[in-house]
């Protein structure tokens, strides 16, 4: 019954089903479709495009085809960016702009100043933000090279003439299909205080007391990196493998004719030709690692990443703080600028490598 309720909830409670009906009826009147039911339905669905073509010819049609996509992008990707700018220069708890007075660069001060401009006492926010930034950088600096090395090694192993190649590739790809929540739960089952790892190590006599691997300050970063790498390795391995397979076979045959040793083949042929792919993978994983959040949040690790900082400060969940929205908006703008530079780099690099 719950299932039925959920379906009912999804499709009731607003005016849009009626809107859809009106849309279809207008379409029916204008188009008067023929053919089977499915054919008629799809014909009617596109009635604005049909009508525009009948009225004005084909010149306006591309815009109509792009419109739905453009609307969604505009509303939920671009508008939020500008809204973030709006939040960053206004203050207050409300998300309604009418209730948020203009605050110039106050939020910036609140985020990064030494003294709290509201109370005049020492500001804690900047320490938290800088801490998050530093921790994230530590995470990125270790996670990205480690993952790329392992991904490269895996791709090289899978690019050999080995038995069951498709099977091995699937195995390494499988974690990519798991959701962050599942990944986190999977590993917290092993890494929690009374988890498999602690109990096993205790049984073997390696450690005396159970360790909370994810909470212990000495271990939390290492295991964050491990779990994150475990979850994302397969994706980058796949791209690298595609890059490896794009290297023409006859190059290796020619090298073999010349009597080139395998190690030299790797360093002189494989790696240079894989260079562009490797570069793209590096930048891509940098961008992703910098945004690491979902897995870490679900794992409940001891440190907070930049995105987690933004999320927590904004008060979208939990308790909103006095100027949390504005501070979070400033922080996200700062991070977004950094990420955009990285993305631009990636587009440049992928453009170059595809040429």
């Amino acid at each position, binding site marked *: 019954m719950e299932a039925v309720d959920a379906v009912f909830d999804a499709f009731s409670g607003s005016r849009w089903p009626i809107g859809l009906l009106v849309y279809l009826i207008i379409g029916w009147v204008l188009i008067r479709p*023929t*053919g089977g039911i499915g054919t008629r339905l799809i014909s009617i669905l596109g009635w604005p495009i049909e009508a525009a073509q009948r009225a004005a*010819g*084909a010149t306006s049609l591309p815009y109509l085809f792009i419109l739905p996509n453009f609307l969604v992008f505009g509303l939920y990707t671009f508008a939020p960016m500008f809204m973030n700018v709006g939040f960053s220069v206004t203050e207050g708890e409300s998300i309604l702009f009418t209730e948020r007075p203009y605050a110039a660069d106050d939020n910036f001060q609140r985020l990064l100043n030494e003294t709290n401009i509201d109370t005049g006492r020492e500001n804690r926010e900047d320490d938290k933000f800088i801490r998050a930034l530093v921790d994230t950088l530590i995470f990125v600096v270790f996670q990205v090279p480690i993952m790329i090395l392992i991904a490269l090694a895996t791709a090289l192993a899978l690019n050999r003439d080995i038995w069951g190649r498709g099977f091995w590739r699937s195995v390494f790809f499988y974690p990519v299909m798991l959701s962050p929540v599942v990944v986190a739960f999977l590993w917290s089952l092993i890494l929690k205080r009374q988890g498999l790892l602690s109990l096993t190590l205790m049984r073997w006599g390696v450690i005396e007391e159970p360790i909370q691997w994810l909470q212990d300050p000495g271990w939390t970063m290492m295991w964050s990196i491990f779990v994150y790498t475990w979850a994302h390795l397969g994706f980058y391995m796949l791209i690298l493998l595609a890059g490896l397979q794009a290297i023409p076979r006859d190059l290796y045959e020619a090298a073999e004719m010349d009597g080139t040793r395998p190690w030299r083949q790797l360093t002189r042929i494989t790696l240079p030709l894989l260079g562009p792919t490797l570069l793209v993978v590096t930048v891509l994983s940098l961008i992703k690692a910098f945004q690491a959040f979902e897995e870490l949040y679900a794992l409940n690790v001891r440190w907070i990443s930049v995105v987690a900082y933004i999320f927590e400060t904004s008060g979208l969940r939990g308790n909103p703080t006095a100027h949390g929205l504005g501070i979070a908006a400033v922080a996200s703008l700062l991070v977004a600028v950094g990420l955009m530079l990285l993305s631009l780099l990636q587009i440049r690099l992928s453009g170059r490598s595809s040429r």
Partner: protein
Amino acid sequence: MADLILENLRKSFGSEEVIHGIDMSVSSGEFCVFVGPSGCGKSTLLRMIAGLEDITGGEVRIDGKTVNHIPAAQRGLAMVFQSYALYPHMSVRQNMSFGLENLRMTRPEIAGRVDEAARMLQIEALLERKPGQLSGGQRQRVAIGRAVVREPTIFLFDEPLSNLDAELRVTMRAEIADLHSRLGNTMIYVTHDQVEAMTMADKIAVLRDGIMEQFGAPLELFNLPQNRFVAGFIGSPSMNFLAGEVRAGQVALKNGAMLPLDGRFMVSEGQTIELGIRAGDLTLGSGQGVDVEISSVEQLGAESYLYCRSTLGEQITLHESGQTRARRGEKVSLRIDPDSMHLFDLQSGRSCRTG
């Protein structure tokens, strides 16, 4: 059936004009071929008639009605594409009925037309197959069938035989000619192959660089080419050209031969000209001739071709019926029949023939 009139038709892509004002009139029921080297604009011209390209300037009139702004589908034309453009996901029958469905014809009527066209083109057995399961020749027939069922006023063919092998091409050529004589429709046919043009056309339009060089019946083009380009393009092997000038009322070739001029040509004293002579109008012998060395001989049994080089390095081809005794390396003299020679002005390339 309809006649087609092009009036000062122009087409530009951006700032570059590719069709430079073409005038043409195809009367009802005629088979008209556009021929020219690749890039001459013949396909563009066809697509402008079809309505697939915008018209930059001038007019296209079908049955006296200007169709410049009428969409392709409503011009009453049907087109056979170079790649056939059969919808790969539809069966042959669906391919042929798709257009009729779009015109909201009734089901029995559609079935009747498709069956009739299939019978005429002998593809009844293929109606339920997908295009991917057909051979090249069968696909060609289906593509024609798709055009036939529309019962168009004008058929448009865009190099329809270029994807077939040589043998099939000859068969299909005959079938299309046969189709024309049976249906009696106006047909516009684009090809780069002058043999196709000569064998099929009622009228040929020779195009070069967006300019129509000559428009007329095949033999008219063969016998009375209006310029050096048409002379060289029409006929196989190509016409031989020898440089010379008009001196003392005679044609003085650079390599020394003198030929008498008669009233057919209008030339002035001292004018530099090119003399054109077809391979079949040359004979081996002495006298008023050109001294050449035979560089290769092709013996085809019933006829022979001699490829010669004059003392000035001009390439000259000679055709002899029957088998020849001439040998490679032999030095011979070629006699030019003054009655079959063509004269072209060297600068303008225009024919010097009067009237």
